[in-house]
């Protein structure tokens, strides 16, 4: 469907972008466009102005320093999959990105867009949550930083205020024997959206789980962490009892909807399956050392 007219800006600095976003009546920032243009064409978003962020220098970098990996919000999924830093430190991210869209879509779609679109089914957010990611938000009054757990506020809703953009996703580098996985249920890997997804990061020490993060997508209004599942795992060997408790806690934490992809009941059941699959995978890797 043809789009209705809107104004177009191509700012060259973050500050200029924030100013335009603060001043325009109904502005939308444009990154990869793979969600935004669909929403505009479907009249789900009716911008008076589109602010193309792609030409702001230094917003698409990926680098490691001071104990953090910083992913610029405009980094494409293709760049995430190619980045030596990411491949070295967090291979789960390229693994996850491989499920998303198609090669052409991954050349366009961005890490920041996948977060800011705030789809409950987005694949990167649960993985970022399992990795204790933080986000940097820029506005007219400077930057603020928050844990990603506070960023998602509902379907399509984030903590971004008027005149603010997401500039970085930051992930702490980690030491120790971390086992990280993302399990996704879908009909088809390419061009499909998760029916449900489960990311987990466990630090193993002497056969026990010393730290745990469990995060889910597509089963609640936002991606969620599951503290109950994490508590069930910490301090215990990865055996049936701890795993069953974590799985039950994960299923209990969901608030799924029924839609064309799946019923709420199915999503809830499948979250249990995905968490089990992730834990068994982690256990097998741990046992294989």
């Amino acid at each position, binding site marked *: 469907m043809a789009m209705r007219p809107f104004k177009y800006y191509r700012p060259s600095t973050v500050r200029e972008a924030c100013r335009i976003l603060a001043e325009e009546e109904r502005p939308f920032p444009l990154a990869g*466009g793979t969600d935004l*243009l669909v929403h505009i*064409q479907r009249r789900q978003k009716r911008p008076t102005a589109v602010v193309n962020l792609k030409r702001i220098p230094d917003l698409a970098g990926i680098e490691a320093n001071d104990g953090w990996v910083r992913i610029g919000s405009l980094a494409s999924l293709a760049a995430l999959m190619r980045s030596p830093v990411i491949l070295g430190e967090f291979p789960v991210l390229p693994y996850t990105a491989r499920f998303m869209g*198609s*090669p*052409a*879509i991954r050349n366009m779609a961005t890490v920041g867009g996948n977060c800011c679109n705030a789809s409950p089914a987005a694949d990167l957010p649960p993985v970022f949550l399992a990795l204790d990611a933080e986000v940097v938000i820029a506005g007219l009054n400077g930057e603020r930083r928050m844990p990603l757990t506070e960023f998602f506020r509902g379907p399509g809703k984030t903590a971004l205020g008027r005149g603010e953009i997401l500039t970085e996703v930051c992930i702490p580098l980690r030491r120790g024997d971390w086992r990280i996985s993302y399990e996704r249920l879908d009909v088809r890997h390419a061009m499909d959206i998760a029916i449900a997804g489960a990311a987990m990061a466990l630090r193993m020490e002497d056969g026990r789980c010393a730290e745990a993060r469990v995060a889910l997508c597509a089963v609640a209004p936002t991606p969620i962490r599951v503290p109950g599942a994490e508590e069930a795992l910490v301090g215990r060997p990865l055996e049936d009892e701890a795993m069953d408790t974590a799985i039950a806690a994960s299923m209990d934490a969901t608030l799924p909807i029924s839609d064309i992809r799946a019923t709420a009941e199915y999503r809830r059941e499948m979250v249990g399956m995905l968490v089990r699959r992730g834990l068994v995978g982690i256990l097998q890797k741990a046992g294989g050392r």
Partner: protein
Amino acid sequence: MPTVERLTLRCTVNGRPVERSVAPHRTLLEFLREDLRLTGTNLSCGTGDCGACTVLIDGKPAISCLMLALDVEGQSVTTIEGLASGPELHPVQRAFLSEGGVQCGFCTAGMIVAAVGLLSENPSPTETEIRAGLEGNLCRCTGYVKIIRAVQVASEMMAARAPAGSEVVR
């Protein structure tokens, strides 16, 4: 409804410099098909799901129905019309013909452009890599077997033409 002025777009399309005034809400696909009359690139789903509108931006596959024309300022766009060298078809085009990789033809432009993008990144893909490389391109005739074969043949043709150790350039 805001009154919106057109902006000047400067880019390269199929090797030729282009300068046009464009309304901001025009997609790259609309610009190519309607303003430049390059109608080889097709509109099918309009939501990025089918790949029929695939073009190359600076050599990499992109979905032209989900880009604004103004987004390609300063960049190089290659469409299906830009692949042949004069009368000589691109090896991927020749292989689609020789292997029967075309049925109704509606997906073909996007398929071929995506395949050219794949082969420039990975000149000798396995069958699995070809399937992954074309995972965003749907053929409603379901002629995938011959499409995959065509990409394999194109890869062989391009390797035979390129001196050993040299980079394969379109």
